[in-house]
């Protein structure tokens, strides 16, 4: 079954870029109806409500981007592919479930790739490096937090009932 879920991801940014995001859900519903009915050999562009939508299908996932009239449609396809390659590298052969359970990470990666609706980095390596850098920062913070909580736990163990600590 095709899943329009991931179109959400790319949609957000392009819509923010265009300045209207209120009807996101409605937009996605309407668009997925339009796109999912298109056969596999047809072109990857649809005109919809005066906007042009570029979509690309990877297995059961559709990636969509809403673009301006003077944007280069073929290049948008490359950008989508670029994003998918970065995801693939990050998750290690990415699948739909990876993206659903780690939707925030998919967003973090997207934010390193696109900004204000424009491409910001053409090197996959750089994107991967930047995301990894931020992830490690989160890890360090977590470790610190647990280290502190361990110290507190040790300190309190001496005086308090072990049951209370578990709580």
């Amino acid at each position, binding site marked *: 079954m095709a899943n329009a879920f991931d179109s959400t991801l790319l949609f957000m940014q392009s819509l*923010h870029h265009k300045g209207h995001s209120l009807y996101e859900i409605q937009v996605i519903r309407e668009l997925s109806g339009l796109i999912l009915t298109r056969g596999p050999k*047809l072109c990857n562009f649809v005109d919809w409500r005066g906007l042009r939508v570029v979509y690309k299908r990877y297995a059961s996932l559709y990636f969509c981007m809403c673009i301006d009239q003077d944007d280069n449609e073929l290049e948008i396809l490359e950008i989508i592919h670029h994003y998918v390659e970065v995801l693939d590298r990050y998750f290690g052969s990415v699948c739909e479930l990876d993206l659903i359970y780690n939707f925030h990470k998919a967003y973090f990666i997207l934010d390193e790739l696109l900004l204000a609706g424009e491409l910001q980095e*053409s090197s996959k390596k750089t994107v991967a490096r930047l995301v990894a850098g931020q992830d490690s920062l989160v890890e360090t913070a977590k470790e610190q937090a647990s280290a502190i909580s361990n110290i507190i736990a040790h300190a309190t163990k001496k005086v308090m009932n072990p049951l209370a600590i578990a709580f």
Partner: protein
Amino acid sequence: MNPFSSGTRLRDMIRAIRSCKTAAEERAVVRKECAAIRAAISENDQDYRHRNLAKLMFIHMLGYPTHFGQMECLKLIASSGFPEKRIGYLALMLLLDERQEVLMLVTNSLKQDLNHSNQYIIGLALCALGNICSAEMARDLAPEVERLLQFRDPNIRKKAALCSIRIIKKVPDLAENFINPAASLLREKHHGVLITAVQLCTDLCKVSSEALEYFREKCTEGLVKTLKDMANSSYSPEYDVAGITDPFLHIRLLKLLRILGQGDPDASDCMNDILAQVATKIESNKNAGNAILYECVGTIMSIEDNGGLRVLAINILGRFLSNRDNNIRYVALNMLMKAMTVDAQAVQRHRATILECVKDSDASIRKKALDLVYLLVNESNVKPLTKELIGYLEASDQEFKGVLTDKICSLVEKFSPEKIWYIDQMLKVLSEAGSFVKDEVWHALIVVISNASDLHGYSVRALYRASQTTTEQESLVRVAVWCIGEYGDILVNNVGMLDIEEPITVTESDAVDAVEVAIKRHTSDLTTKAMALIALLKLSSRFPSCSARIKDIILQNKQSFVLELQQRSIEFNCILQKHQNVRAALVERMPVLDEATFSGRRAGSLPTSVSTSTGTAHNIPNGIAKPAAAPVADLLDLSSDDAPAPSSSGGDFLQDLLGVDLSTASAPPSASQPPKGGTDVLLDLLSIGTSPPAQSSSSASDILSSIQDNTASLANLNGLTSLSPLSANGNSPASPAPVMDLLDGFGPSPQKNEENGPAYPSLVAYESSSLRMSFNFSKQPGNPQTTLIQATFTNLSPNVYNDFLFQAAVPKFLQLHLDPASSNTLPANGSISQSMKVTNSQHGKKSLVMRIRIAYKMNGKEVLEEGQVNNFPRDL
């Protein structure tokens, strides 16, 4: 204490939601989670704040309301740790948009984070700013972003550059601050920075002509060199896509060069070589290469003319067009459309291929190709192209038929070389896709047929034949019924046979059959049935032998549940039974419908003076000089020359008044008594009941002339519209009195309405050395959307202006109806007035705006003045 160790984790929540089998189950899970999150928010729980927000984002993506979490975003952003900020900024971008006032509160945190010592945190802040910043935030934070354009880390510089794009789009005034930093970024080697810098320059050029000049002068050569280096660079794995080094950068450079070269021969000259190189060297077997070629062609087409390059570009497009990949064909069509303005001849060469694309199995391509074909059509090729398109109408699917029909109709109308061809083509379209033909299109066809007196016979026979084979096309049936009603005698007697026609024999009862089928068909709508009813009335006089049968059919509609039909049926029956003496005069053939008036109506405005602007003799049958009181004049004209008034015109209220949709208008004026012809419709109404025809027609014209005396035409309109509902209920045959009331009502109503109108200050909408135009406004009570504007034109010069014509255009959310001016001659230092009606569909949200054009002849020389009126009072 690890925040991911207790409660439901994000992962568990997603799993729970995914395992739901029904929407109700999902709602229950989400409701429970939301309740827990709300509780955590009210307890000001800090440990799980970022996990809660992550859950909320997921819930938001499923389409549930999450506004209660907005303040939590701000708290997370304000906290010190990186993980919290990271989630906080993401949630800010997802859950909020720039319209929310909460966003104002985040400006301060953003400012702090833009100055943070950790570059990742700066990156987060820039990203959020670039995605959601509002105009106020742009003003507040622009200095920070500008400073970050010179930050030591390139990854921050590139983010700052893109962020600047958002800022200058929101506040174009800030553009000049970014010109210098952007130019210095162009010298960088880092691809990310370079891509974003080129993008920033492109957008700067779009918002500021100063920037465009600057970059054109200072950076064109540098950019050309960068592109050259890129094109000649050796394999670099980091940026390689399908054998090409960084196509993204290629494309952005080409895009910027396009803007720089446009309208500047020197800059264009400078980039010729590299464009030629890119166009010839890039391989087109992969999408990335094609994307560059596509962009390159676009640039070649936009920059100043260089014959050789253009040929190269058109050849590339030709290759694209014959490509098997649909994407490539789509972009080729797209680009050919743009190329039309530059080199229509070259595009014409690909006509055959483009025409093939109209039949493509891919809807996107079909639509694009059709748009392009539409542009390609001219006088010389309209016949073969229309033939192709109509031929394709049979095969196309329902969804596409509508679009295709629209285009064909518009082409046929625009380029038709002769009337018979026009009628033929329209007939084909009507029989093939009649249900998709818009009302004004078949109205136009009727007008054309009515004007082509030598083709009356041909048309009615062709229509009769078509309606015998095709019965499910509503608008075909309507036109056929109208023609049979009007020209039934010609049909039966085979008058005006053309050589190309095959002779047919139609008896009188055959013709009546055709109309009867239309009125009895259960799919016919009210308009068709009403038209058929009138056709029958007309035929009753044309075919005396069928008179009794026609009466029966008309009587059958006495039981119709539709009030209109019932009423008409009784009225017509009355005419047939009691008023034999006037029947023949009543159902005379309609005088020729005036094409200029009709096309003027269609365009949404009436030409100021039909007779002068078209040169065709225009007789006003009821002898009433066209007064400023055009809405009333509409009433008078309607029966004579405006039968198919489009529903958008001022004729609406008349339809109310007269009852039956547009078709009533085909009630005929009497040729034998031309001065009273226009009143026949009213006479129709009045003839029901007791008043003898002669008397009623005189009383009607009395009333009408009294209306005409009253130049406050707009107020009259009020009177009419407010009274029209009365007519619908009132003029049933049993009670003739309300009809008279209706007409009596004309007198007093204007004054009353004039007093009621809310007061708006009048304004001088346009003034030049020779002419002043001022507007007076009034509103109809109870209809705030509609504004009545009385325009007064004052001649400020000592010369007389002849052929004075005022035209106005409004954006889509407005609807404009223009009445004729009080005169088309503007005496020296004199003035004339013209009224118009503007309906604002966005009343209260948008104020009126209008573009105007005034044409006149002064001392035999044509003068054209144009302008825009922006100073309307806000609440109109």
